């Protein structure tokens, strides 16, 4: 129990530090955000206009006051307004985030369904034909960057074969079939690489566990091979696999940018890229803060899960 509270405490501290780092990073950059915002297109902005915008953005206040204000708002889930259209950042994130999560979840399910069974099967017949072929495919899948897979998928399935639309988004509530058809390609593009990662992790973990003394004990007890596999090998081997998969999914929180761009999927990452291009600081700060908090939360969840799976961690 103290173990859980301690992990929770560490996570809260990390979230605070992350929010601070993002705040400082934006405010410490050389150059003034207001000036940068107005100087796009190569023109030198008028000093008066810049000053007006600084006032509007609260940049004229001392740094510690700005920081206090920022933190106070964060505590109330207020991330300010977008500089482009004054819409609340929180609302925009709330609209986009579920779409990105859906993408990640679909890819994760695909990776589990493909990677874990094939990885286990390959390890059980190490060096056999299945192992060699599946390992080679995994190596290839790992070598193709996700935007290359995505672009090639668009070319083959949408342009040449015309199976599915090239990209876009339809809300599930409006047209479930169309929604799923549009989800298939982006989720698949992410899922391929992820499956390869899960495959390799599973294979390595199963091979490692099969050599452990307690598997020999189980064999010495006369336990059937299937039961050894399920109860002693896979159960233990899955622990590192689950950890890696969860962390990979976390990485994807910011990593779906490329896929969302390729398939025109209006998720959170796409919003981030356009915010970066438009230098919309409140939006950038908001998105990065939200994703980082989710990432820290996910790490916490993985630790807790690990504790549940492995009694040795709980102390």
């Amino acid at each position, binding site marked *: 129990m103290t173990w859980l509270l301690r992990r929770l405490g560490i996570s809260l501290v990390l979230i605070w530090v992350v929010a601070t780092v993002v705040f400082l990073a934006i405010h410490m950059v050389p150059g003034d955000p207001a000036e940068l915002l107005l100087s796009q297109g190569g023109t030198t902005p008028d000093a008066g206009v810049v000053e007006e915008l600084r006032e509007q953005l609260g940049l004229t206040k001392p740094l510690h006051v700005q920081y206090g204000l920022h933190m106070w708002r964060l505590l109330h889930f207020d991330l300010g307004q977008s500089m482009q259209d004054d819409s609340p950042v929180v609302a925009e994130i709330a609209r986009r985030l579920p779409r990105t999560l859906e993408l990640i979840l679909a890819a994760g399910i695909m990776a589990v369904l493909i990677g874990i069974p094939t990885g286990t099967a390959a390890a059980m017949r190490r060096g056999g034909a299945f192992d060699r072929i599946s390992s080679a495919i995994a190596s290839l899948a790992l070598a193709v960057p996700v935007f290359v897979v995505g672009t090639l998928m668009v070319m083959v399935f949408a342009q040449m074969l015309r199976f599915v639309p090239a990209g876009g988004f339809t809300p599930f509530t409006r047209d479930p079939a169309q929604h799923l058809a549009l989800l298939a390609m982006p989720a698949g593009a992410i899922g391929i690489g992820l499956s390869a990662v899960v495959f390799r992790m599973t294979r390595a973990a199963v091979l490692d566990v099969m050599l452990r003394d307690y598997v020999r004990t189980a064999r010495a*007890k006369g336990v059937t091979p299937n039961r050894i596999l399920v109860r002693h090998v896979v159960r233990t081997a899955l622990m590192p696999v689950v950890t890696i998969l969860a962390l990979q999914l976390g990485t994807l929180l910011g990593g779906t940018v490329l896929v969302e761009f*390729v398939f025109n999927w209006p998720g959170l990452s796409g919003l981030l890229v356009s915010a970066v291009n438009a230098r919309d600081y409140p939006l950038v700060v908001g998105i990065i803060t939200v994703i980082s908090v989710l990432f820290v939360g996910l790490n916490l969840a993985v630790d807790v899960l690990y504790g549940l799976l*492995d009694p040795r961690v709980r102390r």
Partner: protein
Amino acid sequence: MRRLPWTPIAAFALIVVIALLAPWLGLANPVSMDVPHRLAGPSAAHWLGQDEFGRDVFARLIWGARVSLSVAVAAAALACVVGTTLGVVGGFLRGIAEILALRSIDVLLCFPPLLLALLVVTLLGPGATTLIPVLALVYLPGFTRVAYAGVLTARSQDYVEAMRVLGAGKSRIMLRTILPNIGGPLLVQFSLAMAAAVVLESGLSFLGLGVVPPAPSWGLMIGAARATMTQAPLLLLWPCLALTATILVMNALCDGLRDAVDPHPAYRPTARRLLDALAPGLLPTPRAVLDLRGLTVEIDTPHGPIHPVRDVSLQVFPGETLAIVGESGSGKSVTSLAITGLLPGAARVISGAACLDGTDLLRLSEDRLRNLRGAAMAMVFQDPGSSLNPVHRIGDQIAEAIIAHRPMPRAQATSAALALLQRVGIPDPARRLRAFPHELSGGMRQRVMIAIAIANGPRLLIADEPTTALDVTIQAQVLDLLADLKRERGLALLFITHSLPVVAEIADRVAVMYAGEIVETGPTAEVFLNPRHPYTAALLRSAPVEDGPAPEGIAGVVPPPTALPPGCIFAPRCDRAAPVCTTTHPALEAAGEGRAVRCIRWNQP
């Protein structure tokens, strides 16, 4: 370091050389436009055709490699230098430096990598010069972690403490002993960072946030070719292929380096057991629970097959303890694993028979052997810490052994497990049923292993160094328990150990093994009082006895199984060896009532 991955190294070197030589390859100018010939197909002048501005695609591919690799190498190098310094300083100085280094890395790790990159690009604007610090920042934590872990591991090594004992200063220890020992993992990390940097650079360029046009970059080329993919699909394919092939080579390089730096035992496919077709000449003695005849085990090694166990024969009778005693490399553990069919993949039995109550274990199918393991024959291993599954409760692990052979309701198996825990002397057994292995002491865990072993009333119990990991007062308890069980249940106990005093305490008969062979066997008291093989005699003289003379060592070392001497294997170390001993290999011959010895001079003065 073991074998280096030469194929990926060569492939990677080729890519690097081509990229380096780009200006001297006589290529077309990668940025000069030729708009009239935009999207032209392959021609003699433009091998891979021309892009949407009529630029030469082949030249852009080669120059793209130059951009990708230089960004990747520079970023990885920067991350390596900064990250390693942080890790080494943190790990070596400890205190405040350690906290600062590790916590700042923890904060960096709170940002998903691509997100971190986007944050920095937002701040500094796109371009190759931004990319390098961005990518370095992303891969810096990896280096810090590797260096820190390496330093911590190295610090706890005895040889580093030895330097401290000698009075060596910190900087000397750092340079001489620690840095060389973390070089391997850092090299692996460097290759990983480089490969990942190529991916990330191309991704950012693809989004228009990386390399700025018109500079050639694979990511940019793919991004641009998307617009024209229906008219010129090949234009999309070339950069995709170049990028994928490069990453494939770099990933192979990483895997190869990792294997080379962190060598695991080389894998050999499991060979089918080749059993000699001929049954051994003698019929098994009916009374023996275990009758082992002429067991020879072969292991494939890179230097050819070796035979760690050769022509081993022994019998164990009901209610009797037979000890196999020998030093490391004598083959005693391999013998027990061969009997139970638990030999590791690379090893196999090539001749002999092992009859358990008349059934030859070596000729049984794995299925039938499994029905005997844990039932008619049971095993206790040396290390009770690793022999129990850490994630399952003690009670479940005992119940599993029961149910494997006698299907019964779970509750019934649990109460049987409770009775077993009681029998092996575990206090408060009802509570211990629900305990995990790490909550018990070593002695308790070994009692649990014994409970599992006797769960189905075995006829034969094989105990491989069961008390070696235990303290002497706990060892006495466990030895007493085993002796009680043997008496109470009429077990045949095959006890494997290196300790002569333990043999003297518990064994009725003893078989002494040396370099894969039994050299002497007989009743323990007689063998120890009046050893007939010079090795047995020398071994007894080397064991310290409290009130006896000072122990004497045996000169020389055990011959490795790859270089066995031609005659008697003990001859090179034997103080009684005659010239004939170095040429004739002696057989195990009867030497009095119940005794046998493998020495041609045993009855000569």
